[in-house]
């Protein structure tokens, strides 16, 4: 029954023809008409559909990538909590909160970054779910803010003339406190319900710095939440989340909505 509804949603034309056919077949003995009855019904979908409801609530979870990396990467500990709240059929209020402690060991520099961040924004679900599925393929925006400190552990002097030979890395231990940065993130993500109210999700993020309080005689080469910085203020990131959906209330799906969607296609 509901499968039929799905078909109806997909294309309007076949529904009409089915309806016509049944009407022309109206002469056929009653028994046959009864057999055909279910096919007639899609003419007005709101009649057959056992009222479809969307569930609204809060989804809370954790970034599995940061969590697992904390175990296998001795230079990294991090935690990110993720959450979203459904605003309407397609929009979600979304946020991430995290803390990172990362030592970056580069060719010429070794430094430790510690700090926390918060990202707030929204997701737009562009995926049209069938039946009672609650999957999400979304695009969204976040505003990110991080407060952190950096410690330069060792560094090397670049000398294009190596007459005296390459000097070993110099120990620094210099600390840069009270650093902040803010940025905008474009998020492309998906979440799939694996069972009950548990969702697995993946998101890819492109970041661009808005503000960046840099230390004297050093740079914010890594910003918690933003990740590694590149020359042009850009960054990339991703997360791999597992979330639990806490339903709060249900809303009926208004048929008008469905029609709109059909038109769009």
């Amino acid at each position, binding site marked *: 029954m509901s499968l039929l509804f799905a078909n109806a949603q997909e294309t309007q034309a076949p529904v009409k023809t089915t309806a016509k056919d049944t009407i022309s077949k109206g002469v056929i003995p009653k028994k046959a008409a009864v057999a055909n009855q279910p096919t007639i019904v899609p003419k007005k979908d709101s009649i057959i559909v056992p009222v479809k409801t969307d569930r609204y609530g809060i989804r809370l979870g954790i970034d599995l990538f940061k969590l697992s990396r904390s175990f296998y990467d001795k230079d990294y500990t991090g935690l990110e909590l993720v959450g979203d709240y459904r605003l309407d059929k397609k929009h979600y209020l979304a946020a991430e909160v995290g803390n990172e402690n990362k030592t970056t060991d*580069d*060719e*010429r*520099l070794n430094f430790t970054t510690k700090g926390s961040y918060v990202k707030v924004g929204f997701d737009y679900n*562009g995926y049209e779910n069938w039946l009672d599925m609650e999957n999400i393929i979304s*695009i969204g925006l976040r505003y990110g803010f991080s407060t952190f400190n950096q410690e330069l552990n060792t*560094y*090397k*002097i*670049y*000398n*294009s*003339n190596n*007459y*005296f030979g390459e*000097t070993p890395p*110099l120990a620094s231990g210099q600390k840069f406190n009270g650093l902040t940065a803010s940025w905008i993130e*474009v998020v*492309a993500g998906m979440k799939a319900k694996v069972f009950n109210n548990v969702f697995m999700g993946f998101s890819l993020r*492109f970041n661009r710095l808005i503000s960046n309080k840099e230390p004297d*005689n*050093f*740079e914010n*080469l890594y910003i918690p939440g933003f990740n590694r910085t*590149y*020359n*042009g203020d*850009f960054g*990339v990131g991703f997360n791999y989340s597992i979330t639990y959906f806490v339903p709060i209330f249900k809303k009926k799906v208004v048929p008008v909505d469905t029609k709109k969607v059909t038109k769009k296609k």
Partner: protein
Amino acid sequence: MKKTILFLFILCFSFSSCEKDDICDENTITTPRLVITFYDYNNSSVEKNVTNLTIIADGMEEKAVTFNGSTLINGSTVSIPLKIDAEMTTYRFILNFGSTNTAAPVNEDIIQFNYSTENIFVSRACGFKTNYTLNPTNPFVYSDPSVPLSKWMRLVEVKNSIIANENETHLAIYF
């Protein structure tokens, strides 16, 4: 939805163009060398070419400084590195290196440079660089190890005590 996907693609490509900061660009100004220009003592505004000058740092045995691919300098300018892990570098300036001609004998002068260093952050790929400031009261000590031969340098003068790039002369030697 299509528009957003297209937007993401454009974003992806714009990222690929700005990645390249793992290799220190040769054009980046990193640790500078001390730039020396030689002038004619009798006409102090005219640069004068040295002949077969070899410059060897104290403690480097016979390993000479290479400038423009050669250890024998015949132009009117030369750049020499200063030690980044010390505040003093001593160089032997050997004119007419390897010469057997008595008219132009081998002549060695010694200059000890005194300076302070400052390590400045450049970039992720380059790390830091060292800039130098020649000691304001005692920038160099000029001496001659061989008494019988007089010093070939007749006047040594600091032109720029701050050594932060190689575009300017830091030391002028008149001979």
